[in-house]
């Protein structure tokens, strides 16, 4: 699913974020990437959905070689990848339902299909009764559920999450992790970047540790 060969990432100002990353994440894996703050977890996630470009090395995601990927091909790639962030990245002026269907509307999905898929995922994340609520009227856990619903509504083959439970308490964190587990069981490959080792030990089928921009344990 994800292959990285000798990947380096250097930000402007010669700030080295990642060095010589070699990685192979298989389809259907539930992978945790952990490490201390500043280790390069977020950069690694960003490279996978092509929000950042590698300074050197090769990245292949779902058969797409990023070296040959043109800018016009990025939207199609992103439609096959769902992304969840610590700060949820929701449209606060829109309802729960609107936030979720936004991802489908933007890609030109037919209205009937939109309604069917949105209902399906909102039921999966347990927000089927909060369709008309606005994100800020909901708890942090519920907001993250909206973000997850939006990320999976397009049936992505890969779901990336960057510190998805960083702002949530222990019980809600477990609920969210159960949700990721359920998504994984539907066949979606999951990659979660987190500093929480305990969570990784409990849920991950594969646990990669990253330190100072290098892979310390490939898992």
């Amino acid at each position, binding site marked *: 699913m994800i292959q990285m060969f000798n990947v380096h990432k250097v930000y402007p100002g010669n700030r080295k974020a990642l060095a010589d990353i070699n990685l192979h994440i298989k389809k259907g894996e539930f992978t945790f990437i952990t490490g201390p703050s500043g280790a390069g977890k977020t950069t690694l996630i960003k490279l996978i959905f092509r929000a950042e470009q590698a300074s050197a090395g090769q990245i292949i995601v779902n058969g797409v070689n990023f070296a040959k990927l043109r800018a016009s091909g990025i939207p199609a790639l992103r439609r096959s990848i769902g992304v969840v962030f610590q700060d949820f*990245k929701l449209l606060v002026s829109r309802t729960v339902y609107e936030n979720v269907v936004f991802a489908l509307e933007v890609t030109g999905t037919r209205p009937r299909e939109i309604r069917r898929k949105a209902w399906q995922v909102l039921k999966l994340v347990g927000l089927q009764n909060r369709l008309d609520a606005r994100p800020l009227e909901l708890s942090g856990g519920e907001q993250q559920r909206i973000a997850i619903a939006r990320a999976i509504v397009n049936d992505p083959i890969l779901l990336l999450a960057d510190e998805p439970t960083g702002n949530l308490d222990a019980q809600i964190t477990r609920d969210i992790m159960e949700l990721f587990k359920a998504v994984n069981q539907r066949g979606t490959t999951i990659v979660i970047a987190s500093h929480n080792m305990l969570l990784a030990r409990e849920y991950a089928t594969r646990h990669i540790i990253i330190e100072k921009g290098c892979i310390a344990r490939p898992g």
Partner: protein
Amino acid sequence: MFSKIPFFFREAVQGIKNNLLIHLLAAGTITFALLTLGIFMITVINLDRTFNEWGKDMQVIVYLDRAGSAQDIARAGEDIARLPQTRKVTYVSKEEAMARLKEGLKSQAGLLDDLRDNPLPPSFEIELKEEHKNPEAIKLFIGEITKIAAAAEVDYGQEWLQRFSAFIGMLKLVGLSVGSFLLLATIFIISNTIKLTIYSRREEIEIMKLVGATNLSIRIPFFLEGIAQGLLASLLSLGLLYGGYKALLHKLIIDYSLFLGPLQLTFLPLKLTAALVLLGMALGIFGCAFSMGRFLRV
């Protein structure tokens, strides 16, 4: 792409609703610019029109060589009558000219009694065809007249005509430069205002990119918002312009028409009105396109 059209319109409406204040601010800026441009255009158009109207009252008088024979005069009269611009030629003999002068002087006509010879030259009073009664055509006509051998001098209020023509030319130039400057300033202000809008909506753009929207799909709702903004601004400026024209300018001219003679004012012609509306929309779109670029590079 077509299946996304309703989505684009919904997004544009939502964008306007959510950012009403910034949109009104941008629309206000465009309104102000178009209004200023419109005022310039109306002023120049009306001055130009007035100038041409005045030209219509003009008569060309050709004073003839006093030493010319009756034959020369007759030939000159025929030559003038043959010119395509001429509608009517009236011959005014030396005697008739003197009689007119005396009539004009009324009680002081006695002053002329001491003159041994009649110093006044014979002349032709020429009335031009309607389509040639404008400063440019008159100038061309004068060029033709001066080629006639018996013509000694031509009087058509040339000095006044030239000065006024130069004044209108300068006014047009000032209007054009001020207009262009205003247009540039407006584009700059609009682009900054929209940058503010887009900056406030960068998260929205980021999310759109995140879920796989193409740059075009992201741009279209913003373009639609720009068009709506420009349309609102141009209609508003046209309304204000028309209101101002009716209330102020019209009254002003009625008051001054006593001095300037009867003047007929006109509002912007249909073509220019349409151009103003299109310009407003173009400004809206341009402002959007100009400001979006860097937020799309996610």
